[in-house]
């Protein structure tokens, strides 16, 4: 029997029983579409998180005061802070050749006023390096000038929202704001960046670190942001940072260094696993579809016993009958896969329309895996009915009406 004839015969068997075929197609299609859709959502989530992380800046390390028990984990929620981090600690870190930039950070909250308008906003004390480390950009003016970090210059850079609240549509450049008891000249405005990992950096005022320590009357830093030279230098930078601080703190390991890449890698791993798990759960629906195919094929065979008897009477071998019914269920699962892929494409189109910000991306393996699973289950579950058909006794088959 020729391959083209086998396919032709099976194609007509599929179209000859439209209701049955549509049902099986639908079951397969839903299975395939859910594998593709769910894995796409999983992959999208992974990309979303990784994008959020990289918006923090690249090759970032964060030095926090206080020691955490598990290295690389999140900072401890409780526990004493034995020794404060100071601006001098931060500047010492630049000694490491693995480090490109260092930005000490002091955080506090203070009333900020322009004329009669007053707001309580977050004050960030830092240096010129903060701009490149945190990947910030200016919409107006310039950032805090580089130079002597101990100079408490009275200048400030406003976040997008802070500027709107304080100045409205007027240009704030060169004007003065009162922060606490001091007057600061506005020299720049940040672009709208919104949230980045939960920190609203649009409602802030950034001032030189020395001005901030004077304002809040404290020497201790909130944290130090460090940018490594490159990806490979991150782990060396981490070691160096710990050594330098240990030297300066009389041999005490009293800081925690978090690397952004380690955090990101952890999230990445978790989300990849999650995507696979979700796709796996969806694949179970394909197995259900496979069982449906088996049932429907068994019914088809009991309805078509006379046909099978006739095929045998006109010279079909067992092998030929087996192939004919196996190809029929394979063909159905192939068609189901095609419909399922179309369905998921349509579904993704709709999702893209609804959530244009979300980075939906079909992982390369998911349509392939869905299709392979669908066809494999269709063929596998088609095996039992096909064998039953092949083994039918022709006389009994023809006698049944």
């Amino acid at each position, binding site marked *: *029997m*020729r391959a083209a*004839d086998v396919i032709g*015969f099976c194609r*007509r*068997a599929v*179209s*000859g*029983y439209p209701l049955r075929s549509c049902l099986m197609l639908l079951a397969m299609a839903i299975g395939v579409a859910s594998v593709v859709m769910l894995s796409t959502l999983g992959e999208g989530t992974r990309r979303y998180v990784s994008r959020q992380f990289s918006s923090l800046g690249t090759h970032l390390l964060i030095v926090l005061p206080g020691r955490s028990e598990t290295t690389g984990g999140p900072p401890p929620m409780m526990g004493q802070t034995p020794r404060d981090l100071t601006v001098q600690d931060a500047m010492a870190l630049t000694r490491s050749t693995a480090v490109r930039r260092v930005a000490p950070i002091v955080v506090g909250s203070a009333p900020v006023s322009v004329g009669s308008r007053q707001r309580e906003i977050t004050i960030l004390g830092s240096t010129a390096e903060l701009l490149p480390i945190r990947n910030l950009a200016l919409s107006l003016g310039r950032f805090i000038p580089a130079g002597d970090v101990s100079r408490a210059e009275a200048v400030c850079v406003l976040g997008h929202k802070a500027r709107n609240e304080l100045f409205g549509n007027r240009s704030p450049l060169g004007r003065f704001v009162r922060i606490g008891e001091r007057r600061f000249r506005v020299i720049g405005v940040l672009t709208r960046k919104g949230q980045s990992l939960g920190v609203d950096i649009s409602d802030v005022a950034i001032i030189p670190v020395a001005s901030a320590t004077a304002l809040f009357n404290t020497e201790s830093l909130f944290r130090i942001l460090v940018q490594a030279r490159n990806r490979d230098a991150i782990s060396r930078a981490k070691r160096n940072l710990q050594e330098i601080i240990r030297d300066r703190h009389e041999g005490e390991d009293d800081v925690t260094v978090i690397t952004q890449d380690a955090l990101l890698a952890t999230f990445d791993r978790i989300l990849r696993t999650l995507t696979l798990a979700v796709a796996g759960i969806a694949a179970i629906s394909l197995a259900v579809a496979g069982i449906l195919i088996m049932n429907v094929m068994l019914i088809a065979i009991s309805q078509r016993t*006379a*046909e099978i*008897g*006739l*095929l*045998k*009477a*006109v*010279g*079909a*071998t*067992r*092998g*030929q009958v087996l192939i004919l019914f196996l190809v029929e269920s394979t063909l159905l699962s192939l068609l189901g896969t095609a419909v399922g892929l179309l369905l998921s494409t349509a579904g993704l189109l709709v999702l893209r329309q609804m959530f244009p910000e979300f980075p939906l991306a079909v992982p390369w393996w998911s349509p392939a895996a869905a299709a392979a699973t669908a066809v494999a289950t269709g063929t596998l579950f088609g095996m039992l009915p096909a064998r039953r058909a092949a083994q039918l006794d*022709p*006389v009994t088959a*023809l006698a049944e*009406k």
Partner: protein
Amino acid sequence: MIRLENVSRVFQVGGESVHALDRATLVVEKGEYVSIMGPSGSGKSTLLNILGLLDRPDEGTYCIDGRDTTALTDDQQATVRRFKIGFIFQFFYLVPRLTAADNVGLPLVLAGVAPHERRHRIADAMDRFGLADRAGHRPDQLSGGQRQRVAIARAVIMNPAVILADEPTGNLDRTSGDEIIRAIESLREQGMTVLIVTHDPHIGGRAARAIRMVDGRIVSDRKGQA
């Protein structure tokens, strides 16, 4: 051509053995036209099924062209059916979703005959049985007589040596039945060996050789025109 020696077929029905065929012996030469008659349940269909290799005897030997068929595997039997035997049934057994032409061509498809050759042979066969204008019709669009003619065309498409017809007119009215009998009789002129089971004494009587069965045994075998 066909040699059946002491062939028995026993069915177990509820602990009881039914001898559907009881030591039947029969020799049919090439080109013979044989009618088989007998009361219902006398084993006519069982005999035909064994002759057509759809069923295996429990005892005895059956040779086609001097070859013992009982030793053949299932697949070898299928090949013999494909090339040497054509079936015509009471209930036609056409595949409902296929056109008349595709039903006729089914044995060719199973035998792997190339499409262009198939087309010629199908067209010839359809023509011969007056179905030329029905090629594209599906079975449910044909009359009973037409359906049976499609089945006859299918039976002869492989040019088999033996035609086995089990009550081919059993489901037809008189006129179309006569038409079918004439068509089957015409096969003989091609040198095909024909065995036809019938309840109609008129049809049975027209055969050159008439066999009568009772209770699984061949009780009379009349040769020569009645």
